[in-house]
Each structure stands twice: as C-alpha cells, then as structure tokens.
C-alpha cells in the first residue's frame, strides 16, 4: 500500500497541530519577479527569524536574475505546502527527507538540494540492547520488546521500522511495556523520548531501543559507556532536503543552485546559513535527489505494508 496524500496528511498532522488554514502575512500569489519560500509552523515569528535572512540573501543575489523579491509563506499544515506547490504559489520548501519526499511524490515538487542541517549531511538510526543482552541481531529480538521514540519521528520510528521491515522481522505495536509480545514478533512501544527509551532498555522494560547514530556521542550518554551494545544500524538518510516547484523557471533554478551552493563560501552566506538551523551548506545529492526520494518512497511502502500486515 502506497503512502497516499491522506497518509501524508496523517503524517503532517502529527508534525503540526491541526489549525485553521490561515496563511500568515505574506502574499500568496507568485509572480515572475517574486520567489516564495514555504514553511510549516505555527510560530510565524520563529519561522521568520529562521527564514527571513535567507529570503533577504536570495533577494539580494537574485536580482540580476529578475527576482525582485523573495517571500516567506508559513503554512500551518503539510497539506498547505502541497497545495501551494500545486497552485504555483510556492517555489521552495525545506524540510525532512520523508516529508519532502511525500510532497514531491504527491504534489508539484521535486528534490533540489541537500541541506546540512546542524552541520550534518545525513544520519542513520542505531538499534541497541543492553550489554548483557543475548540479542545480537534483529531476529534475536523476537518475542521481545523494542522502544521507538514516536510515530512521527524519522530516525526514532520510520527508519528503524523500515529497517525491520527490510529485514522481514515481523513487528507488533504495543500500548505498554508490560503488554505481552507474540514469540515470533517483535513488539514495539513508543517511549516518546530517546532518554526514556534508554531508561527502559537500562531497566529491562524493553529489550532494545533506537536512537540516531549521532546521539551516541551525546554528552548525556557518555556515562553509558559499554553498558549498551549496538546490534543494527539503518542506511543513512539526508539530514534535510530542499525541494522546489517542479515547473520553476530553469534559469531561476540554475541561478538558485549557484547562489545556494555557494553561500557557505562567504561570511555573509555562512551567517545566513547559521541562522537557518545551523545549516553548514547546501550541496547536491551525491547520487541525485531522485534516488534519495525513491528510496524513501520505497521505505514508506514497506512500512505501510508491514504495518498493514502486522495489524
């Protein structure tokens, strides 16, 4: 079963609070000389603090390309973004790979550039158990419980869930840590927090847990030391993806690519990037954006299929 727009709506509703479809402040009608950047967030002011420097930067550097103005459009739901792409009212959208992949699959959008959010180009999810656990593979977790972070989390749920599916390990969702687990299934329960997950693993409430690979280096876990052991790691996933309107003027796309991928080369551009969630730079997808999105679309299908099968 494919992840449909309805599915995507379901995902988006977990990211953003269902709210009124009010579009904040900015003109919504795209024009030849206006470039529009979209965002999903309830806190408009916070988003403006992140994106306005980028808008200004682009506006400044795209004038010679006929762009008089770069605008930020903040939507309150992912559906708004998809609709805006479809109506030609939105030109750029920056978000996680899964969401951008879903929008690109269902709306008038295409992957554009890779964003090194927080200085990271990609990440993976590790699956770990307590050191004294007998489990060495995912299959060893059959009949036991694993804690995911939350359903909306790409590294905390989507990626490991997809990894389990890819490994053909049947899973069943549990509502609590003390709920019984079929012997041939791995029961998963949402902890709603990496630390909680760690706590459950450390205290034996669950047999395994997941976290981003980078989190292993987090200061808070330096005391864990060798008390946990990693038994699996998911394929890497881009940290963040910039999508564009699929039918955007190629010349402008070219101009944008040049400007964006060179931002990190100037102090001015680095400052703008720093404001943009500590992004180190924009660059091209090593294997192309399309390949990334297709892997994600595949993972979505697997997860949906596995869930449909387990449910």
């Amino acid at each position, binding site marked *: 079963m494919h992840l449909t727009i309805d599915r995507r709506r379901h995902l988006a509703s977990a990211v953003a609070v269902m709210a009124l479809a009010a579009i904040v402040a900015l003109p919504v009608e795209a024009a030849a000389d206006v470039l529009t950047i979209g965002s999903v967030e309830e806190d408009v002011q916070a988003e403006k603090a992140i994106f306005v420097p980028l808008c200004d930067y682009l506006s400044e550097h795209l004038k010679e390309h006929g762009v008089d103005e770069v605008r930020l459009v903040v939507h309150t739901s992912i559906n708004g973004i998809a609709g805006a792409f479809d109506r030609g009212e939105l030109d750029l959208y920056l978000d996680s790979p899964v969401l951008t992949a879903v929008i690109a699959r269902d709306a008038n959008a295409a992957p554009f550039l890779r964003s090194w959010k927080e200085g990271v180009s990609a990440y993976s999810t590790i699956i770990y158990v307590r050191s004294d656990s007998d489990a060495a593979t995912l299959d060893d977790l059959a009949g036991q419980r694993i804690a995911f972070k939350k359903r909306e989390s790409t590294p905390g749920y989507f990626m490991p869930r997809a990894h389990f599916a890819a490994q053909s390990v049947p899973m069943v969702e549990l509502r609590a840590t003390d709920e019984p687990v079929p012997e041939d299934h791995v029961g998963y329960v949402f902890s709603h927090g990496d630390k*909680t997950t760690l*706590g459950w693993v*450390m205290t034996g*409430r669950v047999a395994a847990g997941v976290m981003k690979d980078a989190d292993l280096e987090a*200061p*808070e*876990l330096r005391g*864990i030391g060798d008390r946990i052991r990693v038994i699996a790691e998911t394929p890497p996933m881009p940290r963040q993806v910039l999508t564009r309107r699929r039918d955007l003027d190629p010349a402008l796309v070219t101009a944008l690519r040049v400007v964006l991928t060179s931002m990190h080369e100037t102090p001015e551009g680095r400052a703008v990037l720093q404001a943009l969630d500590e992004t180190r730079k924009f660059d091209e997808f090593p294997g192309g954006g399309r390949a990334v999105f297709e892997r994600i679309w595949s993972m979505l299908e697997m997860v949906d299929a596995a869930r449909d099968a387990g449910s």
Partner: protein
Amino acid sequence: MIKRNGTTTTRLRFGVRRVWRAATHGLARRFGIVQTLTIVGTALALGIGTNALVGAQVRGEIEDRALTMANAQARLAGVQLADYRLEDLAMGLADLGNVRGVTSAIVVDGQGLLLSDGNAGGALFVPIEDPLIDAAKEARSSLVRLDDTSVTAVAPVFLGGGDIGAVRLELSLASMYEQLARLRRQTVIIAAVFAAAGLLATALLLKRTRRSLDALLDMTQLASDGEFGRTQVIRSNDEIQHLAVSFNRMLLRLRRSTVSRDHVNHIIQSMSEALLVVDANGRITLANRAASRLFGHTETGLYQKRLRKLVCRETTPNDQTLTDSIGGAPLETRVVTKREGRIPVLLSASKLPDGQATVWLAQDLRVRKLAYFDSVTDLPNRVQFRQELSRAVIEAQRERSKLAVFFVDLDHFKMINDSYGHDVGDRLLRNVAERLQGTLRGDDVLGWGDGNPLLARLGGDEFTIVCRQLATTSEAARIAERLLEALREPFNLGERQALVGASIGIALFPDHGTEPETLIQNADRAMYWAKERGRNAARFFEPMMDTAANQRLEIETELRRAVAVHGLCVYYQPQVDIASGTVVGCEALLRWHHPKLGAVSPGTFIPIAETSGVIIQIDRWVISTACEQLKRWAAQGLGDLRIAVNVTALTLQQDDFVDYTLEALKSCDADPAKLEIEVTERAAVSDLADTVRKLNALRAIGVQVAIDDFGTGYSSLSYLKQLPADRLKIDRSFVQDAHRNGTDRVVFKAIVDMAKAVGMEILAEGVETREQLAFLGEQGCHEYQGFFMSPAIAPDDVMPWLLERELLPDTPQPEPAPRKKRQRATVDA
C-alpha cells in the same frame, strides 16, 4: 593685580578658617560629632542588624522554598520516575531550572543513578553520591542542607512503599548575598543621606541657636556691667526662648531690686552717717562725704589713712578692740576730728567678702543718748560717768587738784519698788535725780569752783557724783550733808508720799585712789559701810573698809564652801504654849562654826548669803534638815512637836519652792502638819499673789504658815487678811518693853487685835522675863519663845532637855529654866 589676588586669597583663607572654627568649636563640634556618631552608629546598627535578620530570614525562606520545590517536584516525578519517562522528568526539571536561584535539579533512581538533570548535559545513569540523598531516603523525609553558597534540598520519591528515587534541588545563595549586599549599600546610602541631612539640619539649627545664644550673651554681658534695661526678644519656640523670657524677667526684677553702681555710690555719698571701708591692714579705701565732714578731711585725704589713727586710744586701746567690733556689738568710742576734737561715736563694723570691712560711725543723738544716758532719769549712765571720771582724774592729775566721788544708795528703795511697783519706783528715781541735781546746781552755794559736778545713775537706786577741783575734804562732807538733807525730805509719789533716806560713800582723789575704778569701788564700800551702820548717813572711805569688804568676801567664799560640805548646823529654840506651859514646837535656827573663823553670827553671814544668793541653798537645806528631824522626833515619841523654818524672800520666789518642800516632806515621811514655814511680812508682800498661791498650796497638805517679824514692816491689816497664815509672830522689839512702855503696849495690843481679827494665833518672840510672859498672857498671846524658856539648843540635846525639864506635851508645866548664857549665834531669839 597681585595685591588684589593676595587680598582675595587672604579673605578666602580667613573665611575658611572662620567656617572651620565654627564647625570645630563649641556647640557645632559637639552637636556635629554627637549627631554624626548617632547617625552612623544607628545606620551601622541597623545595617548589621538588618543584614543579620534579613540574612537569617532569607536563608530560612530559601530553605523552605527549596524544600517546597523539591517536594513538589518529587510528587510530579513520581509517575515519571516509576515509568522512567526521562524526557518528562527532564522537562519538569528544565522548567525548574528556569526558576530563579535554582542552580541544579536532578532526579536519581532507586540505585542513585542520575536519570535527569534537566537537560543540563550531565551524564545519565552514573551514580550520584550525596550523603544528603542517602539520608533523605533513609529518613524517608525531605532534608535540606545549607552551606556558604547554596541550599540543597532532597525529596525522596516512594512508590508503593518502595524507594524509587529522589529529587535533589540546589538553590544558590548568591541572590541572597546580592540582596544583602544591596541592602547594605542601601543602608549606607540612606545613612549617608540622613547624616548629611542631619548635619545640615544641625548646622542650620546651631546657626539659629547661636544667633539666639549670642543675643543672650550680649544681654548677660550688659547685665554684668550693671545694665539691666536691655532685654532681648527671642522667638525660637524652644528652651532658649524660655531662657530668654526667664532672663528678661530676671533682669526686670533685678532692675527693680538692684541698684546700679552709680546709684550705690550716690546712696553712700548721700548718707548722713559716716561710712568708711578699710582694708585688711586697717587703711581706709573708701570714705563717704559724711565721714569727710565728721573728720574734717577731704575724701581723698582720708584715703589710705589708718583707722587706728582716727580713733581715741583711751577709748579704744588697741587694734584688737577694733577687730572685735567686726560683726559684734557696736563699740562706744571717740574719734579724733579736726573741728570738734574728740567726739563720741558708736562704731560698728562688718566684714566684706573681699577681706575689707565697712565701718559705720554713728553720731545720732538718740543713739548717743542710749549709749551714754540713763533712760529713766536722763542722767549720764555708767558709761559716760566712767568716761567723765577718767577725764576728771586726768585733769586732776594734771592740775594736782582734788576731786570727790560720791556713791549714793537710797535706803529701802527696793521695798518701795516691790510694794508700789516699778512705775512708782521709777518716779521716785526721777524725783531723787531732780532733787540731787537741784542740790548740786548751786555752785556758789556749794563753793565748788568752776568745775561742774556730774551726777549719774549707775543703775537701780545707785547714783554717783563726781565733783572736781575741791579745795578741802570738808567741802566733800558738806556736799554729802546737803545731799542727805535733800533726800530726807518726803517724796510725793502721786497719791502717797515716801520717806527715803540715803547712804552715801565718799572717795577722794588722790587720797582714796588715783584710778577711776578704785575711786568708784571705794566710794561704794564707804556707802555700804554707812548703810550697814544705820543708814541715812555719809561716810568717807577708810582703809579698814577695804579690809571689811575683804572679810565680807572671805565670809561669802567660806559660806559657799560650808554649804557644800554641810558645815552649817541647825539649832532648835523651843516654842511654848503659854496656857499649858508645854513645848509645842521649835524654831530652826542656823548656826555656823567655822574651823578658823570660829562661830560666825547669823547676823553676819545671812545678809551675805542673801546678797550672794547662797541663801536659797541654805533655806532648802534647813527645810530638808527640819523634815529629817521631824521624822527622828516622831520616832522618839516627840511627834507632836512642830518645827518652824524661816524662808527668805528669795527662796519664796523660786518657782519650785512648793515642790521642793513637798518632796522634802515626802522623802522623810514627815508629817506636813508639823512643819511651819515662817515668812516675813516684807518677803510675803514682794509678790503677794505668788506668795498667796504658794502658801495655799502648802497649807492644803497641812503645812502651817507663820508671819515672822510682824510689826517691823508694813504691818498692814489688808496684807494680813490676804496672807494664808496660821500664826503671827510678833517681833521681839515690840515684846521687850511692851509690858512697861505705853506706846509699845498700844502697838502690841494693836498687832494682837489684828491677828485675832484675821483668826491667827499669836506667838511672841524674844521673851526673856517672867514679866514679859505675864504680859503676853494678859494680852491673849498663845505662844512664846525666848531665852526665858531656852535659847536654841542642839538637836541631840532637845530630848534630854525636854526630859530634864519634863516639858514634854501633856506633862505638868515646870518652872522656867534658869537663864543660860545667851548664845552668840542667835539672832531671832
């Protein structure tokens, strides 16, 4: 330009100095220091106290707050901890970490592993070693720990009775210290502001106060210079205003009550009495106009003169006399003046605080008169007489002339004075003075030459006369004879006339003395001699009178000693009832046998005892002795005998006479009815009312009273009627010849009739013959005493005498005893 700058600099320097002086001297400094110390001290005390209080309070609050937060967090964390929802724990702790003052908040599990530190980045699942956590878990109660920099609170978390962890919260005290530091700064600032404001207020207050005080100071300085008219109105509404009002009031009173120096000078200069101020050396430092007029010197001429030089040496012989007059009685003296020579003054002196003395010289006639004249007769008094006599003696020495001093003493003056009162006595004295003056005034008659005689009254009934420049002794005799003659004439004293003779003694210069005192003394002795020998006569002084006077003095001395050592004794002369012939009593009669002088006659020593006052002791002793004798006789069976005791006027006048007599009777347990008090008519009437009162008191308890020597005095029936007496004793002078002399017989009969008229018994004294006794019997006399029966006999001889003659009461009357040799000592028998 340079000069101007210098002037400006100098002014500035002086100005700064003045301000500095004002700020560092006097009230400003004191108030400033005190106020600064007060404010700073108060601020410090408040600061320290507030810091301590606030510090303790804040620490307490922080502790409570820490405990409250830890407990709250523990309650919140219970479920999260049980389910190991570390994100939720972290979220709660992160919220807690945002609370001001919270520096650390952690949650540990039951094993003490760190589960959350509120996103502080601490390593999770590492053991937290904290004794407070262990203690809280063990105590199962929240605990708090306080150190210098923080407060740590731990709240254990239990679930189902099991220990599942703990919340530890740490709050920094930095905010508290900051708060305290801020408080200190604020205190210091407030104190500084108040100190500055206080000092400024003090400066303003002092400026105003000093202005008021300066005004008061000016006023006091003026007042010290005697200017009381300048007052100050100060409206400060404080104590200084009250002080100024009081001071103004005081000045007003001073102005009313105090005179200025000029005014005092004016008063001193306008005085009519001479005033001198002398220093400690007796030199004059100030003299008023009256003193200048008195001495005839200018005021400056008197300056620095010695007062001693201005005072006569004969009246004020030495400096000590002047010194003694300071603060004492006025000194009668004479001063040497330029115009009038030596004139009498009353000198009084008083000491001044600075060691000087004021000397007042009074010439007031009234004062002079009081000082030198007798107020009754206006004759010169003793003082003036002595002064005049001194001058006369000096004059006589210089001129080798004679002078005579007459000492005139009236006869029986005391009786007149006592009988008719002092007014009559004074009138008599004035008449005597006039008569003497009249007699002395005729120079030509007396042939006294050009020397005026001086008549003076020394006191009482004593007059003195000094006659100068006598040619012969016979002149003095003639003068005395004239004086006696003049005084023999009756004196008209209003409704009655009085015959008063006089006794005159005469002393001549230089025959009987060359000193004024000697002359007066010898004239007195001569007068006494004349009085003793019959009165109404004049006698020149003779050396043997001096001897007699010495003898009299010797007798007085020995008499006093005899009284002290009981050298006197009492003899008893029997008193006989004429009808029965039995002895009914005895009269106690004094006898004195001196070891050297031999037997001294009562007629000799009793007058001396009376004049010297010893008679009081003697009378009392006789009363006591008589009482003792009564007791002894009663014991011997002679209880019916009475004893008559003579009491003189002086003794009778004593206030305790009655009490003494009663006490004597009581102490001897003697029968009062057997004691008889004999008083002379003269003694009785000297103070008739007092005598009557006392005699009645004695009679009230049974004591008998007899009037002695009746017939020698007034012999007044009226007196006799008033006197409470049982018996009348007729003087021997009326007894001796009454039986053969017609006049005496008439007088005797009259006396007897008077006695019978007032109901008194009659006792005749001095009965010596059978004829006399027979006459008495015929006249109705009741009793007698005298040598016919017996002279006075010794007490131990009374009983033998009575037994021998069988004269005891109720025994047959014997023949009168053969007449014994008359004893020398008796005067009454």
